[in-house]
């Protein structure tokens, strides 16, 4: 099964790259943009077939490598 992991910066953590994206979008004339935050998207192809076990495995991967929980949050979506 497949897992989709989104890693995002925690609220309050400065995101200079998001800020730069925001500024450039403004300079391109896009109005009504309040904020842009940049994160990461990681797609995993797993041998595991049990969604619960797959989730637990990916959660472990996030904690050990994919996210740095000092500054980042993550969400996991398991797809059949």
């Amino acid at each position, binding site marked *: 099964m497949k897992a989709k992991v989104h890693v995002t910066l925690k609220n309050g*953590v400065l995101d200079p790259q998001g800020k730069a994206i925001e500024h450039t979008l403004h300079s391109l004339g896009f109005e009504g943009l309040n904020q842009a935050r940049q994160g990461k998207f990681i797609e995993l192809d797993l041998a595991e077939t049990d969604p619960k076990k797959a989730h637990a495995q990916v959660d472990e991967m996030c904690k050990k490598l994919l996210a740095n929980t000092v500054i980042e949050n993550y969400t996991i979506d398991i797809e059949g």
Partner: protein
Amino acid sequence: MKACVIVFPASNCDRDMKVALEAATGSSVDMVWHRETDLTGYDLVAVPGGFSYGDYLRCGAMAARSPIMAEVIKHANRGGHVLGVCNGFQILCESGLLPGVLMRNANLKFICKDIELTVERNDTAFTSGYDVGQTITFPAAHHDGNYFANSETLKRVEGQGQVAFRYVNNPNGSADDIAGVYNENGNVLGLMPHPERSVEMLLGGLDGKPMFDSLVKSSAA
């Protein structure tokens, strides 16, 4: 003092570190490939600068999970000295040996210039050759040197005297102007600017030399 330098794929300050350490110790310094798993017999383990694993995922994230890092952690827990510079500092933070994390510079620019720092303590093995409050100059060369820790951690780091060096003019947005930090026991130091590039007048300065001499003195004591 018996010292070694860890080498990761895309380390690029490893040889500078070796030259600086050999000049200070007067003996040969081993280069230890990241796949190796034994660090017994060393007084100092240096984790050098560079762009290990191309900075993929996060700076230092991959290197922090390589086999040798488990040994670096054991070495630190035995009370051995560990010095991480630039990417080495990022790796030590990612491995959990040091608190906090190094993020992209606040102004998004790669900084490559001489930087002034103040010495916060001189009662550690790394800094006995300096004076407290002394201003020193090391070259800095980094894109991700913006030190960040949550307010609770930062309070602890400040309260326990774990700040090693502060920037005189903060170039990268680091919390509390922090350029380098110690672990709680003071035997692990990570800093962004490069002491190993400041050990010969030919390189523009000598301010890094007292750090290496301090380490030699401390291991002889």
